[in-house]
């Protein structure tokens, strides 16, 4: 099964440590990602630039309003996402609990939703709507 793992990080974590410490943190994370990749568990992932680079879009009063900054102003911000292939939820928990990133902030693990049936129904509805009347 596919699990989307959201890794959160305290934005002060990196500010308060030395270059050597930051390097060793990153090295351990990359090394573990490589291990996951070698075993076929790593199905994709991206690190995110800091929350200060974020834009948030919101629909209000009939139009989209864009604001700068992240969706929520909290100490712990989304730092990256990882798409994990695991046998089941406990397997995913086990794989992520060994991720060195878990030392720096919480991870949220959620199964990917299978929308294929919903999409099939939606396509049928749209085909129906496109048909000429009468």
């Amino acid at each position, binding site marked *: 099964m596919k699990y989307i793992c959201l890794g959160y990080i305290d934005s002060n974590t990196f500010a308060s440590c030395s270059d050597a410490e930051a390097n060793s943190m990153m090295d351990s994370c990359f090394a573990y990602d490589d291990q996951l990749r070698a075993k076929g568990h790593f199905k994709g992932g991206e690190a995110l630039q800091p929350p200060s680079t974020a834009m948030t879009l919101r629909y209000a009063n009939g139009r989209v309003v864009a604001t700068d900054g992240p969706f929520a102003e909290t100490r712990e911000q989304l730092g990256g996402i990882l798409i994990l292939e695991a*046998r089941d*939820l406990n397997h995913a928990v086990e794989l992520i609990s060994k991720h060195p990133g878990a030392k720096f902030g919480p991870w949220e693990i959620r199964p990917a939703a299978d929308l294929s049936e919903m999409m099939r129904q939606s396509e049928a509805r749209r085909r129906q709507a496109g048909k000429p009347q009468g």
Partner: protein
Amino acid sequence: MSEPPTDEIRTRLDAVFRAESRRILATLIRLLGGFDTAEDAMHDAFNAALQRWPVEGVPTNPRAWLISTARFKAIDAIRRRARFDASQDDIADALHGGEPAPAAGDDELPDDRLKLIFTCCHPALAPEARAALTLREVCGLTTEEIARAFLTSAPTIAQRIVRAKAKIRDERIPYQVPSGAELPERLAAVTAVVYLLFNEGYAASSGPSLTRAELSAEAIRLGRVLLELLPEPEVIGLVALMLLHESRRPARIGADGELVLLERQDRSTWNHAFIREGIALVERALSTRRFGPYTLQAAIAAVHSEARTPEATDWRQICALYAALLAMQPSPVVELNRAVAIAMHEGPAAGLALIDALLTRGELRDYHLAHSARADLLRRLGRRDEARAAYERARALAKSEPEMRFLEKRLCELV
């Protein structure tokens, strides 16, 4: 010679995983000393097989190959980590044991699976965690499948399993089959988990019926493994009991989803292969003369199974078996069942007197089956108003939908 295509290897490997992964895992936990390390190493070994079998061919003993590959993969992983932490080197050496590489097949001990079962059902673990852990580690179900079977969420089950594993690790629960004086009590904890799984799937009142039937099938499969590894009388009795109950599943639910009582079931739809096997096991368990409550309950079920029609039931024998069960395991519910059997054997008045006495004692006052049994006897004695009151009391206390509908129907029939 041409290499077998990878698709074929993948199919083959899937089959090996389904058939052998639990035995492999059980052995690896013993060899590597931890659930997570073992599971990890096992997945590594299956990955390695996917790459190497197309080139090297499928080994003669795939299970032994996977166990020894997993073991070396685990040692490799520990060595890799040891680059950062010198103390881990000792562990890798200890795992190697300094011995020559074992011949294929030597790694596995016959009772590894039994060790796994006893560990998953250890009394130090929370009872609901035992069931979840057993289903995942011994039966190979996924967290999501277990959650569906127990009608709960996957994170709830996942957390139970994570906590149970942490407890096994932190309290150093030994990975072994208990022996001597400890065995009967520990075995009782194991059979209780198996029977709980069976009943979850059998007596369940809600949820998609298919999933529930699979849970009972899983309990029977587990019972058979236990029977093969540890043929103690109560294990034999438990498997017999499950088979005899399971034999009636097709007859137990009517076309409209209603519960159908034993006396009204279409006996031709019973699973007669299960009945034959169940009866043979009951006889085997009884002949040991060391049997317990599961065997006696199975013997009662067997007497019902042997009757071609409800009228042909040997109620005298059933009364005697209930008396023996009551002596071994005193309980008001067993007393209630015995009272119903006596009503069948000696007439409704004799049964009613026993049920009234039981209800006066108070323990079963809020137990809907006591009131519905009483109602049934009153109905047979022609005391309609009292029967109606008792059915209504039962309906008010019933918790499951099919049971409420069943009692509703009985009330209507009374008019």
